[in-house]
């Protein structure tokens, strides 16, 4: 096990994994299997184009447009396509709504299923063995550990997305935001609120 590969800080020496990937890529390019420009385009897309800002736009639209919200809850895949979002891991998108009495939280115990078109690639902690193993059995404890206390009068629904559907949480709109427009509302929405491990708050 190469410790440096787990080191998320800056590294002076390339990790074993970095060297192996570089060698593998150059071999695959030499054999004509891979075009480096295709890899560049994919990395750029997942680093910059696909990410939680997409999901935040969907949430803000649902908060201001009751018809859109109805369509979103009825068929997530079709409704996000209206805003131009689609792609791998977005098929059969199911949107679940947080209310005063229901709190939804998403996990994948299998590995890392996650709605890429709206949230980008999942964060490291979402893929951790601890989050995957504990969230199904003790959601309230996990949420508390992440800073979110759920009242005893609120029902917690855990969505284990190991199959064909991907899940996405429509968070509650914070109070006293009537004066805000869609872009201002979208700016309040965090990735974690759309996973269900945080609330949307007004700073």
């Amino acid at each position: 096990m190469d410790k440096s590969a787990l080191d998320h800080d800056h590294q002076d020496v390339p990790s074993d994994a970095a060297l192996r990937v570089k060698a593998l890529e150059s071999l695959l390019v030499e054999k004509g299997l891979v075009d480096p420009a295709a890899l560049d385009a994919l990395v750029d897309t997942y680093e910059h184009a696909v990410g939680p800002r997409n999901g935040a736009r969907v949430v803000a639209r649902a908060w201001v447009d009751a018809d859109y919200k109805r369509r979103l809850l009825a068929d997530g895949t079709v409704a996000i396509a209206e805003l131009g979002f689609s792609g791998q891991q977005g098929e059969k998108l199911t949107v679940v709504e947080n209310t005063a009495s229901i709190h939804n939280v998403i996990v994948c115990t299998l590995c890392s299923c996650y709605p890429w078109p709206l949230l980008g690639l999942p964060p490291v902690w979402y893929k951790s063995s601890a989050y995957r193993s504990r969230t199904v059995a003790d959601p309230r404890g996990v949420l508390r550990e992440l800073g979110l206390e759920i009242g005893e009068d609120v029902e917690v629904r855990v969505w284990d997305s190991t199959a064909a559907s991907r899940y996405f949480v429509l968070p509650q709109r914070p109070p006293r935001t009537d004066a805000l427009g869609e872009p201002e509302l979208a700016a309040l929405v965090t990735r974690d609120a759309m996973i269900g491990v945080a609330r949307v708050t007004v700073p």
Partner: protein
Amino acid sequence: MGGMQGLGEIGYERDGPVFHAPWEGRVHALVTVLARYGRWRALRPEIELIPAERYLPMSYYERWLAALTALIVKSGLATREEIADARSRPGSERFEPAITAATALAAALQPPRTELATHVVEPRYRVGQRVRGANLNVPTHTRMPRYTRCRVGTVERDRGVFALPDRDVYFQDPKPQHVYLVRFTARELWGESASARDSLYIDLWEDYLEPA
């Protein structure tokens, strides 16, 4: 691993880069591009062949790299010797760069059709029906978490017809069948220490269920 204990810290971070090192992004992109050659159905079954004592301490993209390398060798895209010194051997298969940047992006940004909408299969269960997780102990790839075995839940929704991943990922007869969203109460799964209000929702293939 749902419901297991002793698996360490969550390691929560509010913000973090998409890729923690450039090689992670390259591995992610390589997996997307090479999948287009159609020589394997999914990376996941190969990741499951990593022994648990090696799997647990590996990072997410180290697992991807290990599984991808194994699939490249098994499927004949390159040999172990070629990978070892990063040089292709004389007479080895040559490919046209089939996957351009444009086709790679199109593949990533278009939803794959996983639902077998044209298959007409009679559903065995209906919404509202009580079902029990079958006592299946599958040594190969499956999408049935062990915590649902022998537990009773309620069908909330019929998702439509899908290939059974247990077979489909190995290029076997996909056995098209209905997938159901099933609700289990937290107490049914985890006992009296769980909140009586809480529940868990999961999509399960018909083969994973029996009537309760």
